[in-house]
């Protein structure tokens, strides 16, 4: 049985944690002052790919589109999934791309890797700096892979080349659903933040520890595994990438205005016991359903 062929799409993102993030006076992110790291969702996706490597044996390529410094995201991802290859798609031409144009680059890149014969492609749930989870499914679609989103755990039936995954679907205003799905390879899996690896034997866990150590060693020399591709090397159609290939534009950015008053508030002094007593009585009245407003 041959190893699975896996690609992981990751993203370099600003570190939004307090003590690291910095904002401009107009409320926008100060990107120059804010360090970038492997996005937290990308990290979960990398760990999910590592699971397949430990459990089934897999060859993993981690890919990202971004500026040259995005190679640090690849390194951090390699640390998590013991990647065999790191691919950076980097070209000025890609700048300013919306999700569709980004997906075009990623699709082209991944098709090139391993001659396009991927079994599983992983991505994070979304990026934390604005992208809202479109790039994954759009890349999946362009690749022609079945897209499985919000996956919280998965296993591969190597014999039948089928993935079984559990997905956590939340329907706003309704209950949440955990759905178990089956899909033939190749699939594109967007990993839910609540993903948890489901190793179930001691030997798998020992293997996990062993590979993890290897990953650490490899990631120290990550440049050895790194390949950088520009637009020409990828062979993308310049009309489909970057700004020219983006259907959408950002037209304007403004402050969200204050909503207009819809209720007339009675102002009560919070230090007056009498007034608070009245508020308490009012609360019971409201809850008792006797009077509403």
């Amino acid at each position: 049985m041959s190893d699975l062929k896996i690609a992981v799409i990751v993203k370099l993102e600003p570190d939004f944690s307090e003590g690291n993030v910095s904002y401009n006076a107009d409320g926008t992110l100060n990107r120059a002052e804010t360090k970038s790291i492997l996005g937290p969702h990308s990290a979960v996706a990398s760990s999910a790919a590592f699971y397949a490597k430990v459990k089934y044996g897999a060859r993993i390529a981690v890919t990202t589109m971004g500026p040259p410094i995005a190679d640090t995201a690849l390194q951090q991802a390699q640390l998590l999934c013991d990647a065999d290859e790191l691919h950076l798609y980097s070209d000025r031409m890609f700048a300013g791309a919306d999700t569709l144009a980004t997906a075009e680059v990623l699709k082209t890149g991944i098709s090139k890797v391993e001659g396009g014969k991927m079994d599983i492609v992983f991505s994070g749930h979304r990026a934390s700096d604005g992208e809202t989870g479109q790039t994954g499914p759009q890349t999946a679609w362009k690749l022609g892979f079945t897209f499985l989103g919000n996956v919280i755990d998965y296993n591969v039936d190597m014999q039948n080349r089928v993935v079984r995954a559990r997905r956590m679907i939340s329907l706003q205003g309704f209950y949440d659903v955990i759905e178990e799905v089956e899909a033939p390879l190749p699939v594109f899996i967007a990993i839910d933040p609540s993903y948890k690896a489901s190793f179930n034997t001691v030997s798998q866990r020992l293997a996990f520890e062993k590979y993890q150590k290897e990953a650490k060693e490899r990631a120290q020399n990550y440049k050895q595994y790194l390949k950088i591709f520009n637009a020409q090397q990828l062979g993308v159609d310049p009309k489909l990438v970057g700004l020219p290939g983006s259907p959408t534009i950002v037209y304007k950015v403004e402050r969200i205005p204050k909503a207009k008053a819809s209720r007339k508030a009675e102002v009560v002094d919070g230090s007056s016991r009498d007034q608070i007593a009245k508020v308490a009585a009012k609360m019971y009245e409201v809850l008792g359903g006797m009077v509403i407003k």
Partner: protein
Amino acid sequence: MSAKYEHLYVVIEHEDGKPVPVSLEMLGEARRLMNGFNKKYSANEKVVALVLGNNMRRLCEELIFYGADAVIYVDSPEFQYSRNLVDTKVISQVATNRELAKKFSDASNFIKPRYMFFAADNIGRQLSSTVLADLESGLASDINKLVIEDLEIKHEHKTKGQAVKYEKTLEMYRPDFSGFLWTTILCLDNRNPAIEREYHPQACSIIPGVFLPIERDTSRRGVITDYIPKFDERDLRVKVLDRKIVKSAVDFDSCKAIVSFGRGIKDSSEQNIKMVADLAQALEAEVGVSLPISKKPFAVSEGVSSTYMIPDRVIGTSGRKVAPLLYIAAGISGAMQHIAGMKESGFVVAINPDENSPIKDECDIFIKGRMEDVIPLLLEELRKQKPAIEVKK
């Protein structure tokens, strides 16, 4: 005369035979937008609801009462549960089918919808992405305001720097991750001769709980059109094996009162959260939070953090929309996103030291004071008065 791109298609989500709330909210907003459109530009263009399902005809009728001019209904046992692959292909088939559009309009030149709406929930976000990848057009996600306008655009790529008038353009407003900024996204054809290309539909996914459905009107009439889908056998190999309903850990729907807290807890976050929890307990209320709280901006013990400072509890545009009899907002300034999630509440009490905070315009009683001073007093009074109420019963 019919145009290449016509109508507003709304992709309906349903669960257990009922539309999920955001579906009706999308129809409501679609109705309002197209009423304006019909007046200003052309009466020919419709609000078209698109339903994939199995034995859902009743639902289709409801959609007309809630604002749809036409419903395209695709019935098949394959649609028992949503599956991205099959659903995407069928939606694309429907959206590019001129014969279907002819059932409710002239449509002689129809190629694709002009606009398209999806729900910004787990299913809709992913479905919108794949459908728009297939239709090769632009998508804006998580939208909470929409305007149709004629705009004059000057753009380096789109118009090669020239001023060009784009008619009937959908302005899609998306709240930024910071919560302070609003980004307007447009999906525009490339009018630059070097990269000429048309991008339609102009599509977006809509945040649940933002827009109001229209009043249900049983006198409304519309066309329900059936469509028989073409399946690729290989696509049907994706199977839903099992489905378990997990009740959300936080149950806002069945409680009469909600006590929410926001950044105002900051002076002693741990104790203040516990105090809010006490208040909630006294009122048999559920605890809600404003969005910033779910990002865990304050150091509190992990137990408190994992119980309260979680996305499940967020009330607002990016969380849940609630309408309890009593809503208490403690230390919440009242950002627009939060207001959208609680404004339907019966009676609103705000506790805040700052009389200028926007929550004052959204509450019935504004208790001026710091929560650490007010809540203990309030708790005392609530406990004092409780027996009296019970006796009355």
